[in-house]
């Protein structure tokens, strides 16, 4: 199926005199990080499968500025934001789905002050609504039935934007053995990447945050830990590696799980 995947850019559609109903904001991690690219492709497969007329910005997309803002460089953040707003408004973009809670939060909450007003959803919200509309349905005998699965709340999706249900609904349709981590929802423990931490070494301490988090996962005895953020993906996989649990714990994005369960 992979080779049949066609990913249109907005520029392409516009050249054909068309425009997308939904812009898929891929994000830097989704574009460049090899592991995150698999999440990106899973989202594209879902979008193509349900027949949404979508497009990406391709090389016209640029960092939202989230890590710059969180690192304290408001100038760089606002420069990025205003350039992106010019591109988005140039294409008259109305609705955006993001693969990353950080892009989601920034586009949704921090662009309006700078003149960028869009309807922004996170991919787990899109998946949730597609399930509700009956457009996504796990295939018979899919791989996740009965599997013990837990969910790690990304901070900028959960606490940051109060999105707790959508990703859980996407897991509930799987008929799997779902288990919550002891620190979940608004009490969820950060993976350690936010606030531009992903781009620097941690300060001196007695443990890495991702290791602390993987211990929660181990306690839950889950075989799969689902997340919905490319940064969490990096950190959780790092934690699994540090604990040498690669054989026991798999880290997957909600989009990947959904795509696989739907045999896409």
């Amino acid at each position: 199926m992979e080779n049949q995947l066609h990913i249109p850019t907005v520029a392409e559609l516009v050249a054909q005199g068309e425009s997308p109903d939904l812009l898929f904001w891929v994000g830097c991690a989704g574009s460049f990080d090899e592991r995150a690219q698999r999440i990106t492709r899973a989202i594209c497969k879902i979008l193509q499968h349900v027949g949404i007329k979508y497009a990406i910005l391709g090389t016209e997309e640029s960092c939202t500025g989230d890590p710059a803002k969180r690192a304290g460089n408001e100038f760089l953040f606002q420069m990025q934001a205003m350039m992106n707003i010019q591109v988005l408004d140039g294409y008259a973009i109305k609705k955006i789905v993001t693969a990353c809670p950080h892009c989601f939060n920034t586009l949704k909450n921090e662009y309006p002050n700078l003149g960028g007003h869009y309807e922004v959803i996170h991919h787990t919200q899109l998946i949730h609504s597609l399930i509700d509309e009956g457009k996504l349905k796990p295939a018979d005998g899919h791989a996740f039935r009965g599997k013990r699965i837990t969910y790690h709340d990304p901070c900028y999706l959960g606490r940051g934007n109060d999105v707790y249900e959508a990703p859980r609904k996407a897991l509930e349709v799987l008929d799997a053995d779902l288990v919550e981590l002891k620190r979940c929802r608004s009490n969820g423990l950060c993976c350690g990447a936010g606030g531009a931490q992903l781009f620097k070494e941690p300060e001196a301490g007695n443990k890495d945050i991702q290791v602390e988090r993987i211990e929660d996962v181990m306690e839950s005895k889950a075989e799969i830990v689902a997340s919905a953020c490319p940064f969490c993906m990096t950190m959780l996989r790092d934690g699994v590696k540090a604990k040498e649990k690669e054989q026991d714990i798999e880290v997957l994005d909600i989009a990947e799980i959904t795509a696989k369960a739907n045999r896409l």
Partner: protein
Amino acid sequence: MVSQVIFGILLFVAGFLFYRNARKIYRNIRLGHPINRSDHPWQRLKVMLLVAFGQKKMFKRPVPALLHLLVYLGFCIINIEMLEIIIDGLSGTHRVFSFLGGFYIFLIYSFELLAILVLASCLIFLIRRNILHVRRLNQKELQNWPKTDANLILLVEILLMSAFLLMNAADQKLQLLNVSPYIQAGAFPISSLLSMLLPANINALILIERFSWWFHIVGVLAFLNYLPISKHLHIILAFPNTYFSILDVKGKFENMEAVTAEVKAMLDPALPPPDTTVSRFGVKDIHDLTWKNLLDAYTCTECGRCTAVCPANITGKILSPRKIMMDTRDRLEETGRNIDHNASFVEDGKSLLDHYITREEIWACTTCNACVEACPVNINPLEIIMGLRQYIVMEESKAPASLNNMLSNIENNGAPWKYAQADRANWTQQ
């Protein structure tokens, strides 16, 4: 008559001193930047009723929440008794509300039950702090004064409740002996258990009753004037602090308008140059914070729920959101003393950044908002941390080297890593 005059003077002096302290706190809070939090009054009222009055967020930790609720209810309800004490003290009456009859009996009955519950809760709190060593109540920033402060508050509350019960016990015994002015009034489910410990001598009983009565009221007035130097100030400030809390989702960080003007001028040279009156980007010291940040600092009770959920602190980093708030208050009070002394602030060679909060602390933050979510009175340590980062990056250009790499990558290639913008869509071809 003499005692009425003494009572009046005490009440006046305590009230005056409290007024002076309160004004000073108000002035200090006003040292912060102006921000507008007068929007959505009904929504704000709702937040205040739920979070401060209803203690909604306390119940994330049910055991301390229940104990705290008892102390809080006791404090609020037993204060009705304070009204009676003040009227009695000023007019020379005794148990002036006793004309309420059955309702008065109900009031005294419930005060007594609450008093013993408050007493027991405070004892348990003391045990938690000093014997059980609950982690968040024994961390580094609580050494010395903060620990003494916490224990003093609990001790005073225990003493006040004991005096209240002892007063009632003596009063009841005097009532049964038909001594004037101890008319039959109230019901004493708890203090009656104490009366067997009291002497039978009428004069001794009167002495005990009067001593307890005076001890109670003088203690309360002294406590009122202890609040301004104590973490216990939250019993007042929790209400305005929750009322003025941020109503937006937590993920949304404040937009820096001063930067917007400059960036717009940079992108469009046709625009008039921005107002250059902005003296500083970000936060270096007290004057760069908003008044809400300063109100937050005065409201903090140092409970450490923020620090207990902080991923950096949990994993042994020195960052503690509670310490951020305590440092802010300490520096604010130092600034206030400086103003008291010199009429206006005189440069003292110190600042919040570096002299109180170190760079190692603020760079350890993941901006995960766990501290903001955990605070039972909606304090936001994250805003202060972000302000300090902004100062370091925009005014000093002293971000950690790895972050500087990330920032220049964004600036040059539109991504935090060193990949070319032109390669951004390469994944579509694989």
